[in-house]
């Protein structure tokens, strides 16, 4: 292929060439196999509908990834608007006069001798995973992207179309809930 050759689209080969790649891309960014699969399907559909807009400057794969990125952002937007707002958020701090102080019954309790508890590795891992599963979807994903996948703040903001201060508020709330959950699960308070 000469350098000037334009890229072309061949939807008949998309599944074979890109399904796993796109699915992998999605699964690190959204919650679960099924959701990732749905987004890949939507990406292919949008690709077919929009194939006349393909100008051949990027590779087929790059073009499909850019569509998938949009789908991921849209997914998180939907979470914000509908379901996200119904999710009950536990609050940890006072409002009003004592704004920002710990609510008395939510203050961190002593974890006692933390080190001796850590021997039970599998159980600890399981408790952590359960607590993470209990987080609202958006909190969970932002937390995992930052903490486990170790993405840069800018990158997450870009991919999910949120601001850095959004991101830190989400991380803060996620970690507050996780700490509280681990306290109950692991330290039996």
């Amino acid at each position: 292929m000469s350098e000037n050759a334009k890229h072309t689209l061949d939807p008949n080969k998309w599944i074979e060439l890109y399904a796993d790649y796109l699915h992998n891309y999605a699964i690190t960014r959204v919650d679960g196999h099924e959701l990732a699969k749905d987004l890949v399907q939507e990406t292919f559909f949008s690709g077919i509908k929009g194939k006349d807009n393909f100008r051949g400057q990027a590779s087929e794969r790059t073009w499909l990834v850019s569509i998938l990125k949009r789908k991921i952002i849209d997914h998180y937007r939907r979470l914000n608007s509908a379901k996200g707002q119904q999710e009950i958020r536990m609050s940890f701090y006072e409002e009003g006069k004592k704004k920002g102080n710990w609510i008395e019954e939510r203050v961190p309790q002593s974890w006692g001798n933390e080190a001796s508890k850590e021997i039970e590795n599998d159980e600890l891992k399981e408790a952590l995973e359960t607590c993470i599963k209990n987080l609202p979807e958006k909190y969970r994903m932002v937390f995992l992207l930052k903490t486990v996948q170790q993405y840069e703040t800018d990158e997450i903001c870009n991919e999910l179309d949120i601001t850095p201060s959004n991101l830190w508020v989400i991380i803060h709330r996620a970690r507050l809930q996780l700490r509280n959950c681990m306290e109950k699960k692991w330290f039996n308070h």
Partner: protein
Amino acid sequence: MGMKFMINCDEATAICDKNQYGEASIMDKICLNFHLVVCKYCKAYTKQNHLMSQWFGKYLTPCDGSEKLSPEEKQKLEEKLQKELEKN
């Protein structure tokens, strides 16, 4: 000026959380440390937060990119895609 250093527990723990990723500013950290002198709850939070960060690093593993769609899933996807292609 003096008041600038005074932060509440919500702000202090938010800084503590940010600090787990090494992204709290120097000013943030000064405010946090001031707060920790007078607040035993946030002090406990900070200690526990460090411990949790260690656990996260130790027990949570990133996706390794080995997740695959099954042949059946791909087959179904292929069929749907073909239908869509016929429409367009």
